[in-house]
């Protein structure tokens, strides 16, 4: 049996390319047979002509023989497939409207979803590029059950090291920066101080040289550094002899001991790594370490967390011996182990999840639309199915053809979707905020593509094939007689229901984007507390021992500022350290003098030159600003902002108050926001000449110092001149980002804007799809009712009445969709509340506006079929079946 099957296969394969020859042979074979028959009859006495006819009659119809033979020369499966594909293509070409809309819908659904999912996946879900990254955790704490980022001092790191049961490795890291000298231009590099086990913990070994040794962890240990691959290539020409070389960081010599492999990224972005040995005698008791750990093989994260939680009490006993922490608060704290990736992206988790929800919606809408289109079309194909069935096509044959056609459609849509996904991903990444984590690794996700393609195609196929099934069971003569355009009303209702569903889903998306748009507009109009127009900012760093003291720094800055003020067009200039407005900045712990039982508190901290407030247009509310008279030898003074006075001075006049450390408050200025959607934090300002040099250097490790220049107009035009003058003051000064304050303002809301753009794009798509869906349903239903319309018109209805009827029907569908959509939106928008500002999740204005837009679009979609219906000639309609 198997041999026979094999032979058959071989025979068919052999025959495939030889069809013409085989056809010819067959004809000849049959001709031979007839000739022989004829000859025999002639020998028996029949006249030749008669014999010929007799022979043919006896033989019967050669057509059947030829059919059977032809069947053996090929694979039937391939034949029917080719046939179906040709037929399918023809059908699709003959209905360009349907085809275009279906392909577009599929492409949008598949493409948009794949692009977004790839981004979300890359940012949130993609595992870190380390060895067994799921075993890497960060030690932090839960406060009232919510995870909080927690940093530790060196001593506290030691505590964890001595209680490390569940872990095979622990490491501490802290971010820092250096001025890298020795190259053609002084350069600012981001660095990470790490303990000796760090690279081992991540499971990545240096490509050249070695890791840090344990003895390098201790205070006063050797100054050693490991370079990143990029830095090595860029500044050291990828020279392997770099190991052992000395490089100047902040003016101090560091020895290079290793180079990391290409593509390696540490847990915070860094161009080089150095040891934790130097960090100890600094503000805060030496620390600000992020503590990471690798779980032992058979230990789970929950086990580790419960172990750490049990250490909460002993930890508090050891590090809070004076019980400054109240018991109530202590009870709400517990330590835990968090998967490292969770902490990294926490701030962007919610919006990205919202996006995921949105793309789910869009996919749903796309599927619904395709289904709708299929069903509308199916009704017009009843006749075709009936005729084919009557001509002998089996049910399976018809279904198979429809299936092939739909797969073809799906493939077309999928191919377009792939293109759209690729293009979409790149456009989105170009628009994305620059601090999107892992942005470099984001690529089109194959799984996402496969998944969405499958879902979209399946729905198309399902809704395309189902009607074919139903028809083939129907009474054929019925279908042919009635012109096949009147099916059961059940299918029509389903189409309407789907259209309403689409409208409701679109409404939800549009409400979401409307709320975000409202938020964005509110944010744009918030007064940031200063005047951002026409101010240039340049980042500089003055770290290193060469300045030696606060006075040295102040002198340098004044020298530079003096030069800058001579540039025509400059109105004022200043320097600020430890943070710009609208960006993260330094903070410090202070105590107000004279309040015996009051606790100390944390307040934002800035170091400034005297012209700062004037340059940024921050109003002076009380007292005075700093002057050149405030120097290292005079009374230490500070200026506070209104929030500081409000929250901590309780209505007393701030001027004349002192801090416990002796500084006198001499002025109060207006509040300046650090985040547009949060109230300004209490802030105090210190004149540059009076800063504690150590703390300035510490803060500069985390925050750039900025030179601010207010100009008459177009600040960017003066960039080169300002830079030149800065270099004249200090040729070794690295200059970082140069931006206008307006750009800074706009960057602070970049992520929100990105999100808003995305969701609005989705809203737009879904609106388009819903409109198309409505159009489809209405036209289809009107085409079926042509007969009815004809009767109405013959009985006296005018164009207007018909228009009203059609639009009325459409309006009904839309209103149902809107009502459902509003209910859905009300239920779902509360998940957006953490992203909103100035708008409630149930903002009535947004809801009403969106509903009106939807209704307007829907009416437009109904208008075309309405006009068509109204133009019907009653005579034609009555005759039309």
């Amino acid at each position, binding site marked *: 049996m198997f*041999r*026979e099957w*094999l*032979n*058959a296969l071989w*025979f*068919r394969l052999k025959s495939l390319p030889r069809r013409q020859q085989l056809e010819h*042979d067959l004809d*000849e*074979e*049959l001709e*031979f*047979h007839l*000739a*022989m*028959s004829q*000859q025999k009859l002639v020998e028996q006495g029949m006249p030749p002509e008669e014999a010929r006819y007799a022979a043919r009659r*006896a*033989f*019967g*119809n*050669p057509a*059947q*023989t030829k059919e*059977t*033979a032809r069947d*053996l020369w090929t694979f039937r499966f391939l034949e029917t497939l080719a046939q179906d594909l040709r037929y399918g293509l023809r059908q699709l070409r003959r209905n360009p409207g349907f085809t275009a809309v279906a392909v577009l819908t599929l492409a949008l659904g598949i493409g948009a979803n794949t692009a977004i999912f790839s981004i979300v996946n890359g940012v949130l879900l993609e595992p870190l590029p380390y060895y067994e990254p799921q075993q890497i955790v960060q030690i932090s704490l839960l406060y009232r059950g919510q995870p909080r980022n927690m940093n530790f001092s060196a001593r506290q790191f030691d505590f964890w090291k001595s209680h490390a049961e569940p872990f095979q490795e622990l490491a501490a890291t802290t971010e820092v920066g250096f001025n890298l000298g020795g190259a053609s231009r002084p350069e600012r590099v981001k660095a990470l101080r790490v303990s000796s086990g760090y690279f081992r913990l991540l499971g990545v070994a240096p490509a050249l040289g070695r890791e840090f040794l344990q003895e390098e962890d201790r205070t006063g240990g050797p100054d050693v550094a490991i370079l990143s691959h990029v830095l090595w290539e860029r500044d050291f020409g990828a020279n392997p002899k770099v190991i052992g070389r000395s490089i100047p960081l902040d003016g101090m010599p560091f020895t290079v001991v290793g180079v990391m492999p290409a593509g390696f990224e540490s847990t915070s972005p860094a161009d080089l790594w150095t040891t934790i040995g130097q960090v100890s005698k600094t503000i805060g008791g030496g620390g600000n370490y992020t503590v990471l750990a690798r779980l032992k093989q058979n230990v789970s994260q929950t086990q580790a967390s419960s172990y750490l939680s049990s250490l909460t009490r002993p930890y508090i006993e050891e590090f809070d011996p004076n019980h400054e922490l109240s018991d109530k608060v202590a009870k709400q704290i517990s330590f835990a182990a968090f998967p490292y990736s969770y902490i990294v992206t926490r701030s962007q988790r919610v919006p990205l999840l919202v996006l995921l929800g949105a793309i789910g919606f869009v996919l749903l809408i796309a599927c619904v639309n395709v289904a709708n289109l299929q069903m509308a079309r199916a009704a017009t194909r009843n006749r075709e199915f009936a005729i084919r069935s009557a001509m002998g096509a089996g049910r399976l044959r018809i279904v198979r053809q429809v299936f092939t056609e739909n797969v073809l459609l799906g493939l077309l849509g999928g191919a377009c979707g792939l293109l759209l996904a690729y293009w979409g991903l790149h456009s989105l990444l170009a628009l994305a905020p620059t601090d999107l984590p892992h942005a470099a690794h984001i690529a089109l996700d194959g799984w996402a593509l496969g998944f969405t393609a499958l879902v979209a195609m399946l729905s198309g196929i399902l809704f395309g094939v189902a009607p074919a099934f139903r028809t083939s069971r129907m009474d054929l003569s019925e279908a042919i007689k009635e012109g096949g355009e009147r099916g059961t009303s059940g299918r029509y209702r389903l189409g309407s229901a789907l259209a309403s569903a689409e409208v409701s889903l679109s409404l939800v998306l549009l409400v979401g984007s409307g709320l975000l748009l409202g938020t964005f507009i509110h944010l744009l109009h918030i007064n940031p507390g200063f005047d951002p127009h026409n101010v240039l900012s340049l980042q500089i760093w003055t770290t290193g021992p060469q300045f030696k003291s606060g006075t040295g720094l102040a002198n340098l800055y004044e020298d530079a500022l003096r030069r800058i003020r001579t540039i025509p067009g400059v109105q004022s200039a200043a320097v600020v350290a430890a943070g710009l407005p609208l960006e993260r900045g330094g903070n410090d712990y202070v105590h107000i003098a004279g309040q015996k039982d009051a606790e100390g508190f944390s307040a934002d901290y800035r170091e400034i030159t005297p012209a700062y407030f004037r340059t940024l247009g921050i109003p002076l509310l009380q007292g005075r600003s700093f002057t050149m008279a405030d120097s290292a030898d005079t009374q230490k003074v500070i200026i506070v902002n209104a929030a500081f006075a409000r929250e901590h001075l309780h209505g007393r006049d701030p001027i004349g108050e002192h801090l416990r450390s002796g500084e006198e408050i001499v002025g109060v200025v207006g509040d300046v926001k650090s985040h547009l959607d949060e109230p300004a934090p209490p802030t105090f300002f210190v004149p540059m000449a009076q800063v504690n040099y150590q703390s300035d250097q510490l803060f500069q490790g985390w925050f750039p110092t900025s030179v601010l220049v207010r100009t008459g107009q177009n600040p960017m035009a003066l960039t080169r001149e300002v830079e030149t003058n800065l270099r004249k003051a200090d040729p070794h000064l690295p200059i970082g980002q140069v931006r206008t304050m307006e750009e800074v303002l706009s960057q602070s809301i970049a992520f929100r804007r990105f999100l808003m753009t995305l969701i609005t794009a989705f809203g737009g798509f879904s609106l388009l799809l819903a409109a198309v869906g409505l159009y489809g349903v209405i036209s289809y239903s009107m085409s079926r009712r042509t007969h009815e319309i004809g009767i109405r018109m013959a009985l006296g209805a005018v164009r207007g009445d018909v228009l009203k009827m059609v639009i009325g029907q459409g309006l009904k569908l839309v209103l149902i969709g809107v009502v459902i959509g509003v209910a859905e939106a009300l239920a779902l928008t509360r998940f957006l509340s953490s992203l909103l500002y100035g708008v409630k999740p149930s903002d009535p204005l947004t809801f009403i506006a969106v509903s009106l837009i939807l209704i307007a679009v829907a009416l437009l979609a109904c208008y075309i079929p309405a006009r068509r219906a109204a133009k019907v000639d009653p005579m034609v309609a009555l005759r039309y079946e």
Partner: protein
Amino acid sequence: MMQDKKERSSDLVQGTLDMLILRTLARGRAHGYAIAESIHLKSEDVLRVEESALYPALHRLELRGLLVSEWGISENNRRAKYYRLTAMGRKYLEGELERWNRMTAAIARVMETA
């Protein structure tokens, strides 16, 4: 296969025709017309092959590898397609013959008078 159209299931008819064709070709190669004539002759005019069924049967047998075909010159100098048995065909024929004998014996037993 009989001129008489009222026959048993087409399956049986088909299988029987195949068997007769193979048996005919066991005696040597032949073209389609010759096969039909041979069956007619050998059965002493009882069996006449329905011509429209002959060639489909031949082609199907060739597909299955029980026969092979080649072009040759007939007795009256015309080009004709000749068929002959393959080894596999021979084995198949033996099996079919055995089956046929068993079946006819069984039918005979059932139909026995007394």
